[in-house]
């Protein structure tokens, strides 16, 4: 991938995603988008902003509030030679359409013995921190990653978001593309400087399944995804002032999971902290810790640690919500405890 300063601009994550979709739609007639409020509104979180004007309502299709209907239609269209993108407005809504996702989208290729591919993308918004309550704040990536047959992509930066979206659209498999509301750079969310970043103008891909060291360090590995990468980087800066060099490993996708990168980093730093905005039990944090134990047990200087949502629904009231979500201060404290005891 060639990038030059002249073609790289600062973009918000939402604009980076919309740019990737637009470029793939230009390049490939089979690509189209379906979802609620993805047309004139541009997607509630801006992932399709400006695309209706460019591609028209035949390819940027506002749908009724019928997630089973249109996600199922995306499955059928994918089997019949299209490359649909379907937006599930909030991941929390998966309960009204999960059958199409895990019993159909994710299983048809396997059940057909590899004869039928389902090349489609589901985009969906994840995450809390802005008092949207228990039904609009979850991340749930662990739920989807638990079920075989779909790739699960969870970007953290505008650059990765564009490259991973391009890769997702070009992938012959179903991809669940989960963007955190807090990384999109939306004017109506709490400002997040890390939600804007350099993005090459031309199309490029970021391989799905490769973790990325967002900050190199020697004392402790912090493994995380999405908005928690931003929190971990903030924490790493504080830790550095304290003489602790944290390595921040951004998984970027949970399926495939880059286990080698986890093991390699933990062997180097000898300490692991997992930061997970999903529920604590039976999820990403446990999987990452198990991976480290399987692959780097003899290297560990301390038991792996994790920060995750306690196993409660996400409360509305701000003091309670902020208490259950992993925060920068908590990451600093947990990392320091791992290193200094």
């Amino acid at each position, binding site marked *: 991938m060639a990038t030059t300063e002249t073609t790289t601009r600062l973009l918000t994550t939402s604009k980076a995603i919309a740019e990737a979709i637009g470029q793939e739609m230009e390049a490939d007639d089979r690509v189209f988008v379906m979802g609620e409020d993805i047309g004139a509104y541009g997607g509630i979180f801006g992932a399709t902003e400006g695309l209706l004007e460019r591609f028209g309502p035949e390819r940027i299709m506002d749908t009724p509030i019928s997630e089973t209907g249109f996600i199922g239609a995306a499955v059928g269209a994918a089997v*019949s030679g*299209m490359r649909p993108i379907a937006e599930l407005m909030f991941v929390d809504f998966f309960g009204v359409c999960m059958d199409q996702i895990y019993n159909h989208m994710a*299983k*048809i*290729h396997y059940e057909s013995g*590899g004869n039928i591919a389902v090349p489609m993308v589901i985009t969906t918004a994840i995450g809390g921190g802005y008092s949207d309550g228990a039904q609009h704040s979850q991340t749930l990536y662990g739920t989807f990653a638990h079920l075989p047959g779909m*790739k699960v992509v969870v970007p953290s930066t505008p650059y990765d978001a564009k490259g991973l979206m391009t890769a997702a659209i070009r992938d012959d498999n179903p991809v669940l593309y989960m963007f955190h509301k807090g990384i999109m750079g939306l004017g109506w969310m709490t400002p997040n400087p890390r939600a804007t970043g350099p993005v090459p103008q031309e199309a490029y891909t970021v391989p799905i399944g490769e973790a990325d060291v967002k900050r190199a360090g020697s004392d402790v590995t912090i493994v995380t995804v999405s908005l928690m990468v931003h929190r971990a980087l903030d924490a790493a800066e504080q830790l550095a002032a304290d003489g602790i060099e944290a390595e921040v490993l951004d998984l970027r996708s949970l399926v495939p999971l880059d286990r080698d990168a986890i093991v390699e980093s933990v062997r180097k730093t000898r300490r692991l902290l997992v930061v997970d905005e999903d529920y604590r039990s039976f999820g990403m944090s446990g999987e990452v810790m198990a991976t480290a134990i399987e692959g780097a047990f003899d290297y560990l200087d301390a038991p792996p640690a994790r920060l995750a949502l306690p196993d409660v629904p996400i409360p509305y009231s701000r003091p309670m919500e902020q208490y259950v979500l992993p925060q920068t201060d908590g990451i600093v404290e947990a990392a320091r405890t791992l290193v200094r005891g």
Partner: protein
Amino acid sequence: MPDNEVLRAMHHQMVRIRLFEETLVEVYAEGKSPAFDIAAGPVPGEMHLAAGQEPVAAGVCHHLRPTDAVTATHRPHHQALAHGVDMRLLAAEIFGKETGLGRGKGGHMHLFSREPAFGCSGIIAEGIPTAVGHALAFKKQGRDDIAVAFFGEGAANQGAFHEALNLAGLWQLPVVFVCEDNTWAISVPKDQATAIEDNSKRAAAYGMPGRYVAGNDPVAIWEAAGEAVGRARRGEGPTLLEVETDRLLGHFQGDPQVYRSPEVIAELERRDALARFERRLLDDGVLDEDAVTRVREEARAEVDAAIEFARTSPYPAPESALDHVFA
């Protein structure tokens, strides 16, 4: 009215489907006595057979071409065969063999074929949205292929049915919805589960024509389906057909059928659509006894060859279970 060639073709189709299903009754029972063990024998697992429902498959699928997409249900053999899925590959999949449609990974409720374009779902009503998607793709691609979604009358009370019909009506897609009304959603009869008598009337809510076809009659079904398929192919939008039919066997093999009396079952056998259709073709001189015998012999040979192919095919290597999760 279909011409004699069509009548004979539909008869042949119904005979081969019936023989296939009847043969599976026997094959499925192998190894399952004296004690019934669902996991035992050459064909394990649940087995939902469609004996009695042949008119729906034969009458509708006669209008289709291999590039038309058909989605079916947990009871899919009749539609798979009528749409042209190779009986040997179908049988091999049911036996869980490497040579099956899905290399043994799908099983009898999860059959997929590229051409003829066929898929099914074991989840009630959830194959219907997929058909809408096939139709959407065909419209976008400028093809005059259509999609047909088969489902039971029980599925018409699922949300997926209503969402899918609304989308198809809204977007005027080339799809035909075919509701097989065999009265019984496992054990619950239609009148205990559905607020109106005919699901076909629900078409009005989604801006499409709806029609109830009574009598489990392949000719009436062929005529109604011909109109619906024609509308779809001409780009005139979707249709909902509800077709009265009979499930001669239990919901699955081994179903004690405590929910319907021996008298009810005897009545179903008395009005068997295949026997009635055959009698009519004989009476009308469309077929003679020799021709019926030839059709039966031909179907017998085809079914025997398919079962033999399935029996003698190798099982998949156990570790091949790890393949094909991703493309």
